[in-house]
């Protein structure tokens, strides 16, 4: 199996229970693996939580990790996918000084070119939001950093797969 490290997106469907974050993060911690990003939200199924984690590992490692995650009692199903098997987005927000918007400003163009948008403007600052792939966000960051960024935050990756997940079928099977 491929020993080369690659970026994998892990999707985990779980019950919404206290302590599960600890349980899942412990699986990575114990193996000295750094998690690139993590996101938890509701899923397409009522009362089922969906986690998206991004990790850089070999396929052999990620397979074993998925096994350990699925072994947890409150995990319904876990998957791993490569970049081309998913559709993903990240989101970020920049806080910038309001002065930059006035006068001979480049900002309307920068925002347009980068498919970003302004969320709020007040006397002191304005906030730009941008969703996209990591590289697009990095590009915007580079441009804006020349103007001085007051604050910056980027979200974890959110992703959906091109293929069907079949979770609903699994859960229905349990009920029957």
């Amino acid at each position, binding site marked *: 199996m491929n020993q080369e490290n690659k970026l994998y997106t892990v999707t985990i469907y*779980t*019950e919404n*229970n*206290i*302590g599960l974050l*600890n*349980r899942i993060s*412990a699986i990575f911690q*114990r193996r000295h693996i750094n998690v690139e990003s993590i996101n938890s939200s509701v899923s397409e199924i009522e009362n089922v939580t969906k986690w998206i984690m991004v990790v850089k590992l070999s396929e052999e490692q990620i*397979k*074993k990790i998925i*096994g*350990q995650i*699925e*072994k*947890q*009692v*409150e*995990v*319904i199903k876990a998957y791993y996918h490569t970049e081309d098997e998913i559709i993903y987005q990240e989101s970020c927000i920049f806080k910038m000084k309001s002065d930059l918007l006035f006068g001979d400003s480049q900002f309307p163009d920068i925002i347009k070119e980068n498919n970003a948008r302004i969320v709020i403007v007040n006397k002191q600052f304005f906030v730009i939001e941008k969703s996209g792939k990591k590289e697009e966000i990095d590009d915007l960051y580079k441009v804006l950093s020349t103007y001085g960024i007051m604050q910056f935050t980027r979200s974890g990756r959110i992703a959906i797969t091109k293929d069907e997940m079949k979770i609903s079928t699994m*859960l229905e099977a*349990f*009920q029957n």
Partner: protein
Amino acid sequence: MNTETKTKKATDTTKTIRISGSEAVVRSLLAEGVDTLYGYPGGAIMPVYDELYKFQDKIHHVLTRHEQGATHAAQGYARISGKVGVCIATSGPGATNLITGIADAQIDSTPMVCITGQVASHLLGSDAFQETDIVGISTPVTKWNCQVTKASQIPEAIAKAFYIAKSGRPGPVLVDITKDAQFEEFDFKYKKCKGIRSYNPIPKLDHKALEAAAKLINEAKKPMIVWGQGVILGEAESQFKAVVEKAGIPAAWTILGASAMPTSHPLNIGMVGMHGNYAPNVLTNQCDVLIAIGMRFDDRVTGDLSRYAKQAKVVHFEIDPAEIDKNVKTDVAVLGDAKESLAALLPLLEEKTHPEWHQKFKDLYAIEYEKVIKNDLHPTKEGLTMAEVLNEINNQTKGDAAIVSDVGQHQMIACRYANFNKTRSNITSGGLGTMGFGLPAAIGAKMAAPDREVISISGDGGYQMTIQELGTIFQQKTPVKIVVLNNEFLGMVRQWQELFFDKRYASTEMTNPDFVAIAKGYSIAAQKVTKREELKDAVAKMINTDGPYFLEVCVEKEGKVFPMIETGASVSDIRLE
């Protein structure tokens, strides 16, 4: 309420009754069939103890001398009986003292339910007296855990705990109950857990995989089985024996698999692993099909993975999907419960005998006998060996005893040389290697199987790690036989220091107390043996004594356990000297 009404109510779980959370804990335990639990009281669990007092005619609480002792006793209870071991402790230090036993149960797949008291819910996170985040602390070493802050959550939490602990690949679970939840009254009704939607304890048997496995086994010229505790946990001993006998395959065991098939069985070829037998280790690297059943290819079994059974096709019968390809790549994985899988495998197998292949095991056994076993069992030197003590115990118990060992040299000797006629007779800490496991585990084992002879065998090091449990034996009058093989060293570490650290015996020499006097201090009959000629009578006296007995045997100080696979070596590079 008088005892009679209590008793009557305790058995009726279908009706709703208004009771406190703490009474619900005890009633839930009763509904799960718990007759014995091990623990230690303290502030945050006092309401439950108050109910245990009221229900003492129905449920036997054993006061250990340390919470770690409670976990090991619960493990011993579970390992010999197959039932779920239960222990109970207070918050804070009471709860953290459970961790070693929980970790041990996790790595050795022992079904155990731990109940801990917790500070009142309004105090959570306030650094209250004896508050500790036991759910957080125990997460990596439990199969499942949860915190309960309302009385109404108690029955469901306990029902889930028992279901999870026992089903599939067993393991320890922990339920942490805040003190206010214990006091709170609610309408109690108990319903056993029958399934959890996110949890699939037994994977469905894949008949295609089973057929592929049978084909490989039938075509094999030099097949070898390595079985583990999965055979015992799955209660698959008779199905396993039938498979081994029909296919005529030499079968070796991991340390926790020991006793699933009698020692005397002609197809039982001994133990694999670091201090296992010569033949099965060497021939692991010569077999053409390696059939692993209910075992997990621990590093102490495989040695260097890159030189482990590379020539063989590997068939893995396993209940836990995460074990497949974890350490050793399999050619055919048969997921499922051992009993069901092996029963389904049997009709697909052809009858075989493989006489030439068997002869290879016999030839290598002869070498091991000459180089190691003969000198271990019948030494010509002056000092007593650990193995001759085991041999004497074998002779006098006829192999019917349950041997509960601790960790170290004596453990390897006990596992190598103890004769087992019955399953669930080898109780030891395999995966975690927890010194101090033996004595308390023997207490639990004896309580769960009072009709069996239970012999605790420890070294002088491990014995002193939980020696306080002599107090439990004294108070409970538990008739366990305690053997300490005293070499005045932490023997296994000393052996490594001799072999790999130029005999620099860093902190392995023990200045020991008068063990006989200590045992007698607890009113336990005791004897010390220093000479070979005293051994037979001393073991006889121990076996024939009603009640607990302590036997110290002073063995040679610098004995070594062989064969041995050095760290990083291949199984076939096993050393005989």
